[in-house]
């Protein structure tokens, strides 16, 4: 069944019959239409009379069954076909372009053969290469598909459009200027209906000279050229006709206005990624963190422990931060050289590097500066391509998917200019992105006229419309930078507007990263309302995420939201000590955070606990176990000062190079002292060599 091969004039005439049926009856009918034929009358229940009265179905003589399809064969076929598509909805449904495309592919598969697709594609795309539904679909979703019809101002232009787009329609009809004018008027009319228009309303619309047959012809050409689409509205099973949703959206989109600054209520600022990295590194510094061999993700049990120490984000902030905070932190630590993956007991673990240990000892502000510095100083003017990524940290947190960035633009400059609009005030993020994508997009000009095929490829990948592509690329670049580089690193304060919109405003850290400030302030001016209690509880009476992150290093979270309660324990303090914290650090942090004096017993205990900390070095040693004191003396005489006597019969060999060690063994053998290797003596099998069986 091809929708464009229908006698639409006749169908539109009968469409009022469907309107007589309530929704449950429509559902039953559509179910039965799938099979077509005789249907037990009881199947329609209370709606039987309505269905029969509508004329869509007729009774069998014995009235035990009804017959579908004979009386209104064309209408029934159309209803069945329409029932298979859910293009139109009562309320606007936000679907991404790919989901819509999937719907479009199904539609084309139902109503167009491969040849028909090839025919329309080769003409409309002005390409002689083989085209299939997948290659055609993006162009159909592009506003220019019907834009050219709308823009046609004379017969020649209309006929040109019909020549390229209407090849599947009856040539007789498609070359009729009157029909094309009717179609143009119809398309123009439908622009006012982003959710499509009920077919029964189409019949009743004031259409000037357009009678039903004329309307039917316009429908035929519109449907055959994929300028129009028909389907059943999802919610009430109303037959609809309309333009493709994204086409209407783009053609009717109002030019976004420049976002204005707003007042916000609740605000939040925290270098979440840095604090997460700190928490993970502190854990790794205490005990290397086991990770999975296949993807380096932190093991589940450890993950749960560490997650409890991460700062809890308000729900409205959490949506700006990726869920995989620990894995991102792990990646960040490795990218910055603060941690490395190394095997321990045969399993990969995340270890803190010496640089990581030094980083942990820095203040929160200095830790942040340390992270921001390489980004800020990076010479990158544009994002690198995926192939150029080398794991180092640069200004941009992403790569472009194909080849390389266009040379003719300096996206860093444009990105800084755009984001600095929020240097002093809060701007709604969505409005900002919308405006930047549509009205202030540095990629737009390039997208229209790419100077290089590689540049073009950046924009055409997956898109028919380079302008849409440019919008999405720029929007994505801004959004990702905003969340990962600014919000995630304390570069932006986010705020909640009373409308529910999330807004942002740059902090000194954000301005510093964008080159608009020389210093940053972080973690110093939090007006935290925190109380350290004599029973070692730390209670937050208000939100102070930076302080929370700092105190979480030497205390354990016990409270349940919305309360934020931590308890200082011996184990947590010793954990902090192991990762390099001193008594002064811990008590200083408490004193800075607490709005009331830190109880003396708490200070006393913390000092006591940390006073018990001692550091010892673990090293491997090789021991020579001698049978007697005399044997030991002989070994000493042969090796001289190279051996250290641990007991009268136990000697330790120094940690020397293999060559020196071999020389020592040679001396012993020459002196008649032979080494029995303990491993061999204990009967361990020798390691199998390569290829041995």
């Amino acid at each position: 069944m091809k929708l464009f091969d229908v006698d639409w004039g006749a169908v539109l005439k009968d469409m009022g019959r469907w309107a007589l049926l309530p929704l449950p009856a429509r559902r039953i009918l559509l179910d039965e239409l799938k099979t077509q034929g005789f249907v037990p009358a009881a199947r329609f229940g209370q709606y039987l009379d309505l269905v029969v009265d509508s004329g869509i179905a007729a009774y069998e003589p014995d009235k035990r069954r009804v017959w579908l399809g004979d009386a209104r064969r064309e209408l029934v076929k159309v209803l069945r076909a329409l029932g298979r598509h859910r293009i139109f909805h009562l309320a606007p449904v936000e679907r991404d372009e790919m989901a819509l495309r999937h719907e479009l592919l199904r539609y084309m598969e139902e109503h167009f053969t491969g040849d028909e697709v090839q025919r329309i594609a080769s003409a409309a795309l002005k390409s002689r290469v083989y085209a299939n539904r997948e290659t055609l679909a993006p162009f159909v979703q592009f506003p220019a598909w019907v834009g050219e019809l709308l823009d046609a101002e004379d017969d020649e232009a209309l006929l040109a459009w019909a020549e390229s787009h209407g090849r599947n329609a009856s040539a007789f009809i498609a070359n009729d200027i009157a029909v094309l004018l009717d179609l143009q008027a119809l398309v123009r009319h439908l622009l006012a209906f982003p959710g499509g228009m009920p077919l029964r309303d189409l019949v009743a619309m004031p259409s000037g000279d357009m009678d039903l047959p004329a309307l039917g012809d316009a429908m035929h050409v519109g449907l055959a050229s994929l300028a129009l689409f028909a389907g059943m509205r999802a919610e009430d099973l109303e037959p609809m006709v309309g333009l493709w949703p994204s086409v209407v959206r783009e053609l009717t989109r109002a030019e976004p206005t420049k976002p204005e600054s707003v007042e916000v209520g609740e605000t939040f600022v925290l270098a979440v990624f840095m604090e997460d990295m700190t928490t993970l590194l502190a854990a790794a510094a205490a005990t290397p963190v086991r990770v999975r061999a296949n993807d380096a993700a932190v093991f589940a049990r450890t993950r749960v422990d560490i997650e409890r120490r991460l700062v809890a984000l308000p729900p409205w902030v959490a949506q700006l931060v990726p869920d995989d905070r620990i894995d991102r932190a792990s990646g960040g630590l490795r990218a910055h050289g603060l941690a490395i993956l190394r095997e321990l007991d045969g399993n990969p673990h995340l270890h803190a590097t010496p640089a990581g240990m030094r980083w942990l000892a820095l203040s929160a502000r200095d830790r942040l500066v340390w992270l921001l510095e390489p980004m800020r100083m990076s010479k990158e003017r544009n994002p690198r391509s995926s192939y150029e990524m080398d794991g180092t940290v640069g200004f941009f947190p992403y790569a472009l998917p194909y080849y390389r960035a266009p040379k003719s633009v300096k996206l860093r400059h444009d990105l800084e200019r755009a984001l600095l609009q929020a240097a002093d005030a809060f701007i709604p993020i969505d409005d900002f992105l919308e405006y930047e994508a549509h009205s202030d997009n540095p990629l737009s000009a390039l997208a229209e006229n790419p100077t290089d095929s590689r540049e073009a490829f950046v924009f055409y990948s997956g898109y028919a419309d380079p302008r849409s592509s440019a919008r999405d690329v720029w929007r994505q670049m801004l959004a990702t930078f905003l969340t990962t580089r600014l919000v995630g690193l304390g570069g932006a304060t986010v705020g909640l507007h009373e409308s529910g919109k999330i807004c942002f405003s740059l902090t000194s850290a954000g301005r510093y990263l964008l080159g608009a400030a020389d210093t940053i302030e972080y973690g110093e001016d939090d007006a935290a309302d925190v109380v350290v209690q004599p029973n070692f509880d730390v209670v937050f009476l208000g939100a102070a995420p930076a302080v929370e992150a700092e105190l979480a290093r030497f205390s354990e979270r016990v409270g349940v939201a919305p309360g934020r309660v931590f308890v200082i324990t011996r184990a947590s303090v010793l954990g902090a000590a192991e990762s390099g914290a001193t008594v002064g650090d811990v008590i200083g942090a408490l004193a800075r955070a607490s709005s009331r004096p830190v109880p003396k017993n708490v200070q006393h205990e913390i000092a006591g606990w940390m006073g018990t900390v001692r550091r010892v070095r673990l090293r491997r040693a090789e021991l020579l176990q001698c049978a007697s004191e005399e044997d030991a003396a002989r070994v000493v005489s042969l090796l001289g000062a190279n051996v250290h006597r641990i007991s009268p019969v136990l000697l330790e060999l120094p940690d020397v190079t293999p060559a020196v060690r071999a020389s020592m063994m040679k001396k012993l053998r020459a002196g008649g002292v032979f080494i029995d290797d303990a491993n061999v003596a204990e009967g361990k099998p020798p390691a199998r060599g390569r290829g041995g069986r």
Partner: protein
Amino acid sequence: MVDEWRSDRGKVRVGALAVYVLAGRVVGADTEASPAATSPSGVILTPGVEFLPMNDNPLIVQGDLTVLADVSAPLYPEARDALARFAELVKSPEHIHTYRITPLSIWNACAAGVPVDEIADTLTTFSRFPVPDGITNQVRDFARRFGRLRIERDEHDPTAQHLYLHASDPMLAEELAHGKALAPVLGDRIAPTIFRIAQGDRGRIKQALIKAGFPAEDLAGYAEGESLDVALRDETLQGAPFALRDYQIQAVHAFHALGSARGGSGVIVLPCGAGKTVVGMGVISAVQASTLILTTSVTAVRQWIRELLDKTDVAPDQIGEYSAGIKDVRPITVATYQILTHRANKDADFTHLALFDQRNWGLIIYDEVHLLPAPVFQVTATLQARRRLGLTATLVREDGREDDVFALIGPKKADVPWKVLERQGWIATAVCTEVRVPLAEESRMPYAVADARNKFRVASENPDKTQVVRDIIARHAGEPALVIGMYVSQLELLAAEMQVPLITGTTPQPRRDTLYEQFRCGTLPALIVSKVANFAIDLPDASLAIQVSGTFGSRQEEAQRLGRILRPKAGANQAHFYSIVSADTVEQEFALKRQLFLCEQGYEYEIADASAFA
């Protein structure tokens, strides 16, 4: 009467929610009761309290049903009084107190007539942040379960040996009838919603219902018991003026409820030193019936008797002691839990439990109800026709049987935070100091080679503690001092070195009484006592306690020992509690547990090195 909610840019004005004192029972009494109206629920209201912006509100309601209360917030007193009616105080350190809402605490509130709407309103009104989703619903769910079951007498035959259990609806009755634990004791179902139950099963059924999550409201009333004329004196036998304090009067009224079936059983929670014994005597005088008093030790028995004689007009021959040595049953009989639970061997019967039936008791008082032993619970289950009063400083039981206390003794009737009493001067202000003494040189090697348990003992018996005790006593010269310890050998050594008398479990009672008397009179400035001093010794003049060793980290022991010095003092009303521990040993680790406990009770806690006292 109830003002409507009115929100004015962050300010909330509310009337009914500023609940202050529950009629007939105490919920905190540190502020003056202003002229106030009484709501239909019996709640006395302070209208027109202007609530501050949300950020100044004192409560943080957490998702796990705990509530944090900021004591420095302007509305804290109001919030605390409202909260105390339906949440248990878990810890009360200096700045932020923690309360916990449980089904039991809600049922306690319901039993006291607090409407669930007021509970929900209290949470939302005083909360600093929006109350988490589900908390209010959970509270309502708990409350909905209360009152759906009632135990009542047969109104046509009050003397009948059966009672009726009424369910609110047939479905609930059906659920009960199919409950494994309940079905055997429910008796006949005489109507879709009514069961006939035996008098003797009243306690067991209440216990089982609590466990099933449906507390029964017991309106079956009490046996009057043998009548006894008792009145409180205006002047003690010692000649001092005597009267119940306000909070004690309110506690008595809350319990007695003018003799109605809604009163007569329950628990009164008062801190150590707040006069629980006096409240008990007040209840006896209200009930005017023969009374069995159960307490923790012979010393406590004697203390009760002495107090009864001192502060009531009961004649000495009307008071009996029932202990290991004496078996004297009189209209008022004071017995120990130990004697009641004594038996020849573990398979034998508890012969002394017969005491419960030896007289027609009109009232049974369970002193230190949080220590009530299991066999006494069992007997109490059969004594539901008698009025029952529980006295305690804490409803928290180490064995978690709070629900049995609720079911068998009764709901909480009064609870006055100790901080309130301290502020009012009814109990002394205590400063706790942990003094750390390095382990003596001669103890180091024994400590190093000892196993875990003996390590604690070696550290506890650190001989260098003796000098610190001397130094502390010297610093507090003139203050009566109690030196308390766990190990008798250590105490004997201490007593010998300091020339101070020692009381242990083996000290004969006459000798104890003599020493107590001398201590009370001031002729004996210091006394060394073993853990016999943990319970119910009344040493009103002690203002200094020095603990040289304790039972590992026992919080209960710490509370009892501290309680010895909390009675009000003349002058600065200040008491000092020192705990001497060996530094950097396991004793210090156990001391940390006690430190936490005391801090959570709100006491000021200091840590000092022994050298500071030298």
